[in-house]
């Protein structure tokens, strides 16, 4: 599923090349049939058809075969596959590790136990307890939330995988930021201290916001196929809180069920495949 978009994109790129080659060969064959020499044929074909690189770019842009289109395909919010987000996070981790000149220090700081490190200026191990504490707390809270909501083992494992990757990326980013702050020659200790303090607060808030987004993302996925639920519509009446309270209903496009969220709770109602029911009622 993850590679479907890539295959589709590659076929769009191939399509232009195949059409171009067909056009060029047909034209060359016609010119050769009129008695022209090979060198003349090549020259005329190049003049009449134009430069391939020039038209290729414009054509691929129109057909959705350019690099921008590929990136668009793999935007987690756009791609139906649930594995795009973990793949992006894993890729970000690899990039962060590979591009870091002090990558082994990053790794040893990542796996070192609290208290193992020596003073920061010796540049051996970067203290990452603050980041680990935040992400550890978030992981425990998330596990408790998943256990309480009871939406199924598959979605819980997926959600935990996503959060573990986020946590690893968060700790890596923390270590990279501290490495950068050590490498910079600060004009004064006050400035360095103020910026680090600001960074601590920003990191804290960014971690909380990320966890909030993660929770919203997990809540809006089908527990069976892990794809995002779509076609949200409101039901009930805002003035009738007791009998018909206002609720938001989103459905799984694969027909696995519907999520109903109201002010107090959210529950997923599994279905045996409502597309089948719909098709059966349509054929009657």
């Amino acid at each position, binding site marked *: 599923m993850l590679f479907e978009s890539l295959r589709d994109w590659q076929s769009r790129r191939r*399509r*232009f090349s*195949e*059409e*171009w080659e*067909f*056009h060029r*060969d*047909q*034209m060359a*064959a016609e010119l050769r049939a009129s008695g022209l020499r090979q060198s003349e044929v090549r020259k005329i074909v190049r003049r*009449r*058809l*134009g*430069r*391939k690189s*020039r*038209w290729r770019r*414009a*054509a691929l*842009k*129109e*057909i959705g075969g350019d690099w921008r289109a590929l990136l668009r395909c793999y935007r987690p919010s756009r791609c139906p596959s649930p594995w795009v987000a973990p793949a992006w996070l894993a890729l970000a981790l690899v990039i962060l590790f590979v591009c870091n000149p002090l990558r082994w220090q990053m790794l040893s700081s990542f796996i070192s136990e609290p208290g193992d490190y020596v003073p920061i200026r010796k540049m051996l191990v970067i203290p990452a307890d603050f980041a680990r504490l935040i992400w550890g707390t978030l992981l425990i809270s998330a596990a408790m939330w998943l256990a309480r909501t009871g939406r199924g083992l598959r979605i819980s494992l997926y959600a935990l995988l996503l959060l573990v990757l986020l946590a690893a990326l968060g700790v890596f980013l923390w270590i990279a930021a501290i490495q950068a702050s050590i490498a910079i020659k600060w004009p004064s200790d006050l400035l360095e201290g103020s910026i680090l303090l600001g960074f601590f607060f920003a990191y804290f808030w960014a971690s909380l916001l990320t966890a909030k987004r993660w929770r919203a993302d997990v809540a809006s996925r089908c527990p069976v196929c892990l794809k995002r639920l779509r076609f949200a519509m409101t039901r009930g009446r805002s003035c009738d809180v007791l009998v018909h309270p206002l609720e938001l209903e989103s459905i799984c496009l694969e027909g696995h069920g519907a999520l109903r969220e109201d002010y107090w709770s959210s529950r997923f109602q599994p279905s045996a495949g409502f597309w089948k029911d719909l098709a059966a009622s349509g054929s009657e």
Partner: protein
Amino acid sequence: MAPPDQIERIPQGTLHLLVLRILAAGPMHGHGISRRLAALSDDWLQLEEGSLYPCLYRMERRGWIRSEPGVSENNRRARFYSLTDSGHKQLRAEQEGWRNFSSAVESVLKGA
């Protein structure tokens, strides 16, 4: 055939109209479209033929034409383009627009 100094480049914005008109006769591949365009204009109108493909893809994206794989007259795999219902409507609208435009230019030329 037009002498080389009298060959006209296709004015910007009219390629859609010409391609739609050619495809109204039936499905055709990219090379066929450019050959037909040259034949119908007696080689007066020429385009850099590579520019046809961005134009065809744009028209396909807008839903005016559709493309299907097929086999050419010399047994090669090719992609054939044909007009959709929306393309027929677009052709009528563009023909109307072009006629209005050319009659407006004509009346200015006559009056000057």
